[in-house]
């Protein structure tokens, strides 16, 4: 098994494409996006489907990548969070195929 970094990025849906570009430019080999259905932050609950503009929806990126590029990734994402709503966390994971990430 090989140790990699797992990034979990919860960000507002309108900024999704921007996050895609940030991750791709930083050189990750892949990521997957999941739709959130609700949440809480800033003392307020939100729920998907209560406004048709979907401008308050959130999505989660899960991205497994090599520790090498971590500085590049986090610097750019910090910039993104300067403007957009979201949270980010990093952890260690084990994977089977080293060259895949």
């Amino acid at each position, binding site marked *: 098994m090989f140790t990699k970094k797992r990034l979990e990025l919860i960000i507002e849906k309108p900024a999704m494409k921007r*996050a895609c570009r940030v991750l791709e430019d930083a050189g990750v080999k892949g990521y997957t996006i999941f739709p959130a259905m609700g949440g809480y932050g800033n003392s*307020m609950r939100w729920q998907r489907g209560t406004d048709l503009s*979907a401008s308050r929806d959130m999505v989660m990126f899960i991205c497994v990548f090599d520790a090498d590029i971590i500085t590049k990734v986090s610097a750019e994402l910090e910039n993104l969070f300067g403007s957009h709503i979201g949270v980010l966390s990093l952890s260690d994971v084990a994977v089977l195929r080293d060259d895949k990430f």
Partner: protein
Amino acid sequence: MSAELIFSTLLSPIVLFFVLGLGAALMRSQMTVPQSFAKGLAIYLMMAIGLKGGVEMSKTALTPEIFGIAAIALILSLGMPFLAYMMLRVTSKMSRIDAAATAGHYGSISIVTFVAATQALELAGIVTSGYMVAMAALMEVPAIMSALILARRGMKKSGEVAGSEKGELFREVFLNASVVVLVGALAIGWITGEAGMSKISPFFVTPFQGVLCLFLLDMGLNAGRGLRQGWRQLDIGALSFGITMPLIGAALTTAICYAMGLSVGDAALLITLAASASYIAVPAAMRLALPKAQPSIYLTLSLGVTFPFNLTLGIPLYIMLAQWAGG
């Protein structure tokens, strides 16, 4: 006449279903109309409106009067945000950027409010022109520009947001679902005319009002939830803006319609467009262009305050204004 008008509007099935949804949400019912189903209905409604307008436009020539109305529509969409911004800065404690974003919503329009007004006019036996749909389409976008001008005025030039791309805002603004579907259907209705329409009218015309009932049930739920979640964020100045701004927009437009000598039906629709506020296209654009403006502020106002007001009391009032201006 006017009491009757208010009465028949308020007791029409579409308004009653809206009120049902609003009431259920305010009483904290958990019921929902699935988002993807409601979005599908929204696309249907925009196709239907566009087609209808396009077919009617195909029957008459483009007169100079139409271009005159279009010019007014553009000016209203561009200009009203400046008015709204000043009002918000004076009457509420909203930050510069929140005020700018909110102002943009009030220059733009709500297509559902427009449709509801069409229905109320039909009920009252007042004719309207097909090209008014084009005016609605025309007023969607310009207000966004004004909001950006307002927001960026005096802002220190900031760097680009990471990952942003040239053209993404343009696409969001000019190629969003409502512009694509409304303008596209308008063009298709125009091209195919009455002949093409006859085959598809059992889907786009006959059941239209019924679909609107179902859609407005969902809008009521959304408006009620928006209001319940967001009103605490708004001071009294902001909340009252949600009603005074439509009234000011309506008054202004009434004067213009009077000066132009517009027909009662068209005047009523133009007044309604001016008085209505966007809650789909503009919020989405604002998240990209002005991400620091708080969505809970502008959505609560346009969806939770202005939309219910327009749908119930606003529309009969605007029709009366148009009757007065046209009479």
